[in-house]
């Protein structure tokens, strides 16, 4: 076979790069900015290969104020990071310094191909306070099952230079109707204070469903964080299913299901019974599977339509889970697969083209004859 073009060779005799992992510990430090502050941070960096080289580095807008005890290690090492902050930092907020360790690329002596190297980065967050009053908050609420109280986590950081008094409120809504209110008394927070609150919302009386929760903190400015809260019950919902099947062959039959229980549901499967005016034509099962809380999955079985004529039938979808059954009667259709008539379109186009050619040809012949007749008459004259 004649080949033209470029010959591109990725020559590798051996995979010269060993599988590599890289680690760093601990992974996070945080501090508030103070003029000319000096601090040291100790990290351990490691490579799974005891002879593997590790390069270390610092990144971020404050990296220029960082000095590393070493530039590289072999196998494992203790890295000391010296930080000497400047007199001022103009921009308030979090300034992140990343301390990274990566496999040394010089190890990758391979000649060609694509090699992967791993890197890992720990962070040192330097918070420069905001002038005046300023807080930041994080809020999460955890889904529960019906009859349970939902736990929530609230973290409030006073990142301003002034003290504040706050009383956060958590509200639970359904369709914009407020159902629950929980007041949290935090009171006075000094500058740099951090409060972490883990508590419960009294959701045990609420029905299953999806609710909106809002955290509101007002300190002159308003912070509002919305989170979805799902209250589950032991139920596997059928959300969709296949209903059109081609006759004369085996078709996949898909049932989309959703676990509405805030716990894992094991051994979920479906049995499908196809009937025609009450007479059972066939039945089949899907493989069983486990479903994580709130997970959506497809159960797939196979519907043999080889001997079932075209028409409308009733399918009884039964989804089995934890000794329970969710049942749904639906209509399904067996039909002849559509005939591939693309060739007919091409035949039509070709016929049209031939017709146009014939018309043009006839027109030209008539025209030529007329011209000949006219020129003959002129010659006779």
């Amino acid at each position, binding site marked *: 076979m004649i080949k033209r073009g*470029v010959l591109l060779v990725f020559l590798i005799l051996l995979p010269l790069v060993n*599988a590599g992992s890289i680690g760093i510990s601990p992974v996070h430090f945080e501090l508030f900015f103070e003029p000319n502050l000096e601090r040291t941070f100790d990290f351990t960096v490691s490579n799974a290969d005891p002879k593997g080289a590790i390069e270390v580095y610092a990144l971020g807008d404050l990296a220029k104020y960082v000095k590393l005890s070493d530039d590289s290690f072999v196998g494992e090492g203790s890295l000391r990071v010296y930080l000497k902050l400047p007199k001022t930092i103009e921009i308030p907020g979090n300034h992140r310094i990343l301390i990274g360790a990566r496999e040394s690329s010089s190890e990758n002596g391979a000649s060609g191909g694509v090699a*992967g190297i791993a890197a890992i980065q720990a962070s040192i967050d330097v918070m420069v306070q905001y002038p005046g009053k300023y807080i930041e908050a994080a809020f999460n609420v955890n889904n529960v099952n019906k009859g349970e109280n939902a736990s929530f986590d609230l973290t409030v950081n006073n990142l301003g230079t002034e003290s504040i008094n706050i009383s956060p409120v958590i509200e639970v809504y359904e369709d914009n109707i407020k159902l629950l209110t929980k007041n949290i008394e935090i009171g006075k927070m000094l500058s740099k204070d951090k409060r972490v609150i883990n508590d419960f919302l009294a959701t045990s009386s609420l029905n299953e469903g999806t609710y909106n929760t809002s955290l509101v903190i007002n300190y002159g400015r308003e912070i509002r964080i919305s989170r979805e809260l799902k209250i589950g019950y032991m139920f596997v919902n059928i959300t969709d299913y296949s209903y059109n099947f081609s006759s004369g062959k085996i078709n996949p039959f898909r049932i989309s299901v959703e676990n509405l229980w805030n716990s894992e549901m094991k051994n979920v499967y479906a049995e499908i019974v196809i009937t025609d005016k009450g007479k059972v034509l066939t039945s089949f099962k899907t493989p069983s599977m486990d479903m994580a809380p709130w997970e959506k999955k497809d159960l797939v079985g196979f519907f043999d339509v080889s001997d079932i004529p075209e028409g409308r039938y009733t399918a009884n979808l039964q989804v089995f889970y934890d000794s329970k059954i969710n049942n749904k009667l639906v209509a399904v259709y067996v039909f002849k697969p559509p005939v591939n008539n693309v060739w007919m379109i091409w035949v039509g186009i070709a016929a049209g083209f031939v017709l146009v050619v014939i018309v043009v040809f006839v027109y030209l012949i008539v025209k030529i004859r007329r011209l000949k007749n006219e020129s003959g008459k002129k010659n006779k004259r």
Partner: protein
Amino acid sequence: MALNKSQLIGYAAIIVIVISLASIGMKFTGFITTSSTGVVNVTITPSGSINFTTNFINFGSGSVTAGNSNATVNTEGVLTGGTGWNSSASNFTLENIGNVNVSLALKVDKNATSYLGGTSPSFKYRVINDTEPLSCVGNTASSFTEFTTTDAVVCNPFPFDNAKDSIRISIQLVIPSDSLSGAVAQTALVTATGTY
């Protein structure tokens, strides 16, 4: 009869051996008359660690077939427009083996132009989140995405839970017919960076 020093040591050794043998299989039973509570403090330092369990892709050698402007080869079994290249090369496999979630970013040291050259080359990756679903939250590269030489976050987070801490990364090259010819003796380095 006085015992000398070596006899004393010998007898003591025999007594120790006898007591040791006698205690084999012995069970101590009885009532506890006093109790105390032991407190064990264990501090697990957060540790970030990622592991390339498969970290080399060898496409081998090949050529663009006559009449084609380029050839496409990837680690998902595709080879079109060319012959020779190995489309059954393994994907990269990457695992979070630390005890914290990290964000995961990818970058290369050479983009398609500098790695492959020629007209409209392409050097792409795709994060496959199938063997341990939910391992790549917010996957920004579920379809083939061109590599860049700066970090592009692909998973955030890349969790550490054992059931969902592993992803595969497939690589695709589009090699133009006027690409760098001859032996390409350079390796493209893909850096996977986990950041806490």
